[in-house]
């Protein structure tokens, strides 16, 4: 986002565009990345409800890929994932590997 000059700014520092934080990338904070293993996924959606960064995409009640542009790699999803037959559907892998 190009920063505005003082003449273009809204009075009272109003932000007219709701939810524009989506344009800000927090994915670069990540030290480890969650990896989704679809065959172990039971579609419980716990990862989605417990994600602090709204970074689990869900379409038609089924989860899709992570939103790596915003995921900070906290690992809450992997920790809460019940998996299938003892095998996690989300594992954390170190970034850069």
């Amino acid at each position, binding site marked *: *986002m190009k*920063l*505005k000059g003082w003449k273009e700014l809204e009075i009272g*520092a109003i*932000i007219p*565009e*709701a*939810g*524009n*934080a*989506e*344009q*800000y*990338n*927090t994915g670069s*904070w*990540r030290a480890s990345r969650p990896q989704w293993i679809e065959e172990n996924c039971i579609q*419980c*959606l*716990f990862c*989605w*409800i*417990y*994600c*602090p*960064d*709204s*970074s689990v995409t*869900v379409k*038609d*009640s089924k989860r899709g890929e992570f*939103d790596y*542009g*915003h*995921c*900070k*790699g*906290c*690992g*809450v999803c*992997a*920790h*809460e994932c019940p998996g299938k037959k003892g095998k996690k559907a989300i594992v*954390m892998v170190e970034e850069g590997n």
Partner: protein
Amino acid sequence: MSTPLRLKELSKKEDLLTGGHRMCAGCGAPIAIRQVLLAADVPLVAANATGCLEVSTTIYPYTAWKIPWIHSAFENAAATISGVEAMYKALKKKGKIDRKIKFIAFGGDGGTYDIGLQSLSGAMERGHDMVYICYDNGAYMNTGIQRSSATPFGANTTTCPAGRVIHGKPQKRKNLTRIMAAHDIPYVAQTTPAHWRDLMTKVRKALEVDGPAFINILAPCNRGWRTPTNNAIELCRIAADTCFWPLYEYENGKLTVNYKPKEKKPVTDFLKTQGRFKHLFSPDSKDLLKQAQENTDHEWDKLLREAACWAEETGTTEEGK
């Protein structure tokens, strides 16, 4: 018709708190706030007291909120939103607005238990149609972990550092939920984001009442609690299982305990998970641990006794779920 409280149904709704906010990785607060916003089926207008949530979700020129949202100072989120609600009522009376809108204020424990307590108490007493949500992480985390009146007994913070002379916070935490219940408002509850269905049910009840409501939500902070980033939800579960953070609600003054652990775990199960209580586990701190357990037991027994009285009075045999 409200959305059924099933994840498959809820996931079809729009997330009203977007990603790209700058809360720390693994913070409990945005998890709780997302759930609050998902639970609501009516349009919301929010005010936010100064705190982590307020600062980190609205770093100019960005905002993570998809609802009208007003920045407030530390002490006056409740006053701000009660003013907005009064204006809404006036406009409605003049026929300039006909939509049903609900008003909600968010504050951390610093902005709610301490600095914003008088404005909150005033708004509740005046009976505004609003919901106040406190996300309690147990200290002023935003400014670097200073003690608040919500900080639990024995916790190490930068203003009550554990050392040879004092052993973390020497005082007990203030029970704000019960202080709010003492205002005799239509709805008061306490919950955690790990119990998402409980949380969302309570948010709906709070939004449904015509008048003020208050919900206190536990929000783990991995920076202040000295925990890994991945276990915020697990910590909430342990907090409820040890009765450190009981789940309960007051509906028109009637108390119900919503969750009674099958086996009440010792409070050390909660304390040992966090670095802020590490010093309590040294050999010469046994009496401090004992006191922490006594504090928890005392609050829990008090709750159970009161709930039992209510159950007896209203003729229900089992007051919990």
